[in-house]
């Protein structure tokens, strides 16, 4: 475990804790951005430049902005003063433990995961593309389809507005 990794890991965990515990929704969102950035730099540290860039582009540039937009447009200030952590705490803790345990179990027990780490820089972009477009093309397309459907659904939901408030003037 290199010093760089230690710094990045601490940074990411602290930011993630902040995202959970900070009282103002916008602060929490910004803290989440910090955590995502930490993860991105971890990828960079591993030599996965493309994944780093995509992580930043998608999660920071799009998802975080989306969250921020939602907070602003729905007046997220209304729930100010309450942390965004799951209530009751035991439930959240349970889920967190479950996820962490699952991840550790996967790393430890599954044979594929114990394969040797690729050398730095070997995550060649070309290979990534080839793998995605050949071996996993069905999965990729399925994800794409899913996202498109989700988007259409979102548009439909936004269009209807059955609960629109009466106009005040």
């Amino acid at each position, binding site marked *: 475990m290199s010093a760089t990794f230690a710094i990045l890991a601490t940074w990411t965990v602290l930011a993630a804790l902040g995202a959970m515990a900070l009282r103002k929704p916008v602060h929490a969102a910004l803290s989440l951005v910090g955590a995502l950035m930490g993860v991105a730099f971890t990828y960079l540290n591993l030599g996965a430049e493309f994944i780093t860039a995509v992580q930043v582009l998608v999660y920071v540039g799009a998802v975080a902005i989306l969250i921020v937009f939602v907070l602003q*447009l729905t*007046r997220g200030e209304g729930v100010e003063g309450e942390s965004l952590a799951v209530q009751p705490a035991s439930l959240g803790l349970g889920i967190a433990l479950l996820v962490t345990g699952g991840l550790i179990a996967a790393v430890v027990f599954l044979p594929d995961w114990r394969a040797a780490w690729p050398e730095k820089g070997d995550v060649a972009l070309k290979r990534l593309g080839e793998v995605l477009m050949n071996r996993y093309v069905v999965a990729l397309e399925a994800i794409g389809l899913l996202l498109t459907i989700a988007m259409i659904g979102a548009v439909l939901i936004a269009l209807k*507005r059955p609960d*629109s408030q009466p*106009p*005040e*003037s």
Partner: protein
Amino acid sequence: MSKPLDFDAAEQLAMATGDVEPEQLDHDAPVSLPPPGPRYEAVPRAASPAIPEPEGELLEVSVGPHHPSTHGVFRMNVVLDGEKIVQLKPVFGYLHRNHEKLGEQTTYLGNMPYTDRLDYFCSLSNNWAYALAVEKLAGLKVPERAEYIRVITAELTRLVNHSSLVGFLLHDMGTMGTPLMYAFREREKILDAFEALTGARMMCNYHRFGGCRVDLPPGWLDQVRTIVDNFPRFIDEMERLLSENEVLIARTHGVGVLPPELAVNAGVTGPSLRASGINYDLRKVDRYGIYDRFQFRVPLGEKGDVYDRYMMRILEMRESVKILQQALRDIPEGPVIDPKVRLRNFTPPVGEAYGRIEAPKGELGFYLISDGSKKPYRYRIRPPSFINLTVLEDMCRGHTLADAVIILGAVDIVLGEVDR
């Protein structure tokens, strides 16, 4: 006797009985004011684009009084639904100095410099309007040469105002001041001429009752001729630069439409009125001064939107150049002021007069009541930009805040005149 006063009911009663005294008004009841709301019967509110039900929370924004594009200390209390304007209330008075009260405590002549400060872009038009009202009150005649000088100065003022307005309007649309600087270059030339004539660039204080203060300095007419002859080139330049610009068209077409009926009913005057297609130019209607001697046309818009208002200014500048050329050609020699007028201790007879001219911004009127003393008993200004603001809300509703800025810009206000 305790019911709130209702004139319509009183009227019906009057029709029924044929006899209703004004004494029936209830004096003791507290004055009850009707609740605010649209109670205009004559013309419906402007047919602005239909405003859908507000989709989100309404946001109240106060644009001004020190916002860069309110043209002075002017405020718009805007209620926004997203970016759409639901309500817009103009708020002013920040520059209010009770000009009319000042006027009632000063002599007739002493008021002349104050009129410069009304619409400080057009001091010479203001001078003329005031002089016209006083001349009407006292029955004074103006010598021929002075009439020509008045026309020349007033039309030059119109050029100054319209070119600056076009510049400011485009500046509001975000052109980084380029058209404004072009306009100011021309304005400087005209202000130089004003300076040569009156000694001041903006606060000219030049017209007098029965004429003008001094005769033209030597060579002045040639100076003005050069300016006037070169002016069309500036207009062409401006038009080439922006009139056909795609962005300008996108920003101004169909924005802030003012229907002609509403324009008339709301007393909108000047280029804004003519942009709505109403042919009403006091230079043609009243033919005050010697405007009946000149050949010129009154441009009329068809849609009444911001683009038409912009084009009205451009076209009016071209017509002003025509008037100027004729006036400069025909100006006779002679005295510039009626020698019988005693400006000091000027005391008009008892009575009242309302005189109005077509100032660059619209109808500028002065209403004077004389009680036979040296000061006017009542001195009232009918400011065009103040009254043109009446319909601001109607024009803006349903548009975005960015549109409101250019709609306000196209109304052409000067706060010195709005607030007085």
